[in-house]
């Protein structure tokens, strides 16, 4: 059955290619640091399940150590003029190739669910992404007639633009596990429920909505905040004490958390990574573009809970 192990193997091979090409990249002043960083990530992808917990932890320490001293950055050989000439030569074929990954993702999501023996049903998305990538690479190499190494050299260039931010989402997910083991959520939940004035339904609704957003901003993830806030305020006060509709309280409460996700650097894969990927000079530029949408939407969500939960 095709599942995560095969996807991790492919990811490991691609990171290994980035490591080798980084080591050979003379335009990067810190090429060995980059090579070591991507090599460690390749090792984690390929061998993580055999290393054991402590060794995986030491691997993370090494990754952080390298990143803290700074990664370097290589450049592309192709000039803007060359790329414009390429664009004119290939025309709209480029768009068809760009559509291969999303189309395979679409087809995979629709088809693989019907083939539970072939593809692990829980991993349909990642398997489709991996298959889409392989298919697009194959078609690209044949159709555009490029050297086999070119995609990996250009991929390495993009990877350098992202840099250490590439593993930040995975680091934050791991931090969530440590916070859970240390009991951080329980204490936050106690604080939140203690902060609500008694006998005010409105105050409870507002505290629940704001609490979801604020705790999501701290944890970077509405999934971590939801059980805490729902157990601290949502269920005991809004549902049991005031008779609110649990479906509304849960569903719109989660969406209050999503408003928090838009406003925090902790939600790295949505906020920090795109800033790096688009090579923006301000790491928080995407967060800043989102706050003016997130705040009014948070107010709307709190009002929706107020009007819809207590019909």
């Amino acid at each position, binding site marked *: 059955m095709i599942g995560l192990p095969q996807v991790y193997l492919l*990811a490991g091979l691609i990171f290994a290619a980035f490591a080798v090409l980084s080591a050979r990249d003379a335009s990067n002043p810190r090429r060995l640091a980059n090579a070591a960083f991507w090599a460690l990530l390749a090792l984690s992808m390929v061998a993580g399940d055999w290393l054991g917990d402590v060794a995986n932890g030491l691997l993370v320490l090494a990754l952080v150590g390298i990143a803290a001293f700074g990664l370097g950055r290589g450049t592309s050989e192709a000039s803007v003029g060359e790329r414009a000439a390429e664009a004119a030569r290939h025309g709209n074929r*480029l768009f068809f190739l760009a559509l291969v990954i999303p189309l395979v993702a679409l087809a995979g999501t629709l088809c693989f669910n019907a083939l539970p023996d072939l593809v692990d049903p829980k991993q349909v998305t990642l398997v489709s992404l991996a298959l889409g990538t392989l298919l697009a690479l194959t078609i690209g190499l044949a159709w555009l007639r490029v050297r086999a190494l070119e995609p990996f050299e250009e991929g*390495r*260039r993009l990877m350098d633009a992202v840099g250490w931010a590439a593993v930040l989402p995975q680091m934050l997910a791991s931090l969530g596990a440590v916070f859970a083991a240390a009991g951080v959520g329980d*204490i936050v939940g106690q604080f939140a429920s203690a902060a609500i004035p008694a006998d005010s339904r409105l105050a409870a609704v507002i505290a629940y909505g704001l609490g979801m957003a604020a705790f999501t901003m701290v944890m970077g993830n509405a999934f971590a905040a939801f*059980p805490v806030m729902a157990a601290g305020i949502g269920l005991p006060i809004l549902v049991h004490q005031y008779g609110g509709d649990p479906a509304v309280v849960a569903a719109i409460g989660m969406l209050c958390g999503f408003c928090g996700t838009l406003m925090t650097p902790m939600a790295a894969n*949505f906020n920090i990574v795109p800033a790096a990927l688009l090579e923006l000079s301000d790491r928080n530029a*995407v967060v800043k573009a989102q706050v003016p949408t997130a705040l009014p939407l948070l107010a709307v969500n709190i009002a929706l809970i107020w009007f819809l939960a207590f019909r």
Partner: protein
Amino acid sequence: MLVLSGIAVMIGGFMLRLNPLLVVLCAALASGLSAGMDPVAVIAIFGKAFNNSRYVSVVWIVLPVIGLLERRGLQERARGVIAGMKGATLPRLLTGYLLFRQLSAALGLVSIAGHAQTVRPLLAPMAEATAEPRDEAEAERVKALAAATDNIGLFFGEDIFIAIGSILLMKGFLAQNGIELSPFSLSVWAIPTAVAAFLIHSLRIRLFEWRRHRK
């Protein structure tokens, strides 16, 4: 109480603009140690969670394809196509993308777009081509708005789909507390917020364009 030191480390570290990877590791150590674990145990918990979260970093496998397309001129082509369209404006482009992203996410198709797959190679260059920014600062704001539009479309579309992670999490949490609900009865309540998100964000896109032209 002391276990909250990890949160303090996170906030302080981000404000001091230290390397975020270092901040995250220090926050984990601070929280774990103040909860009475020994350092090796904290490292082991972190290492185990890091290994179990590898799926988060798999998205980077698309970079060789995106890199190949960029080297062969995809961004230039995207700019050229949009510049050749009559009536293509920044608000129309971004609002159209917002609607596409919300609708496709509501059908469960969350991975057919994203920052690496569509925003960097297609949406951001198209947004720049329609906006014709006057300087680098304005170009960066246009690109950041394109990235923001992708996030907002995804977040406030996906919860309408019944089999998405957050719906299953809510269903599971409520079931543990003795409340049985169908995923559908949860997902319908995401629709009012989805409409509000579309109205608020498309209004903001228009305001952004209006302020740019007034200057």
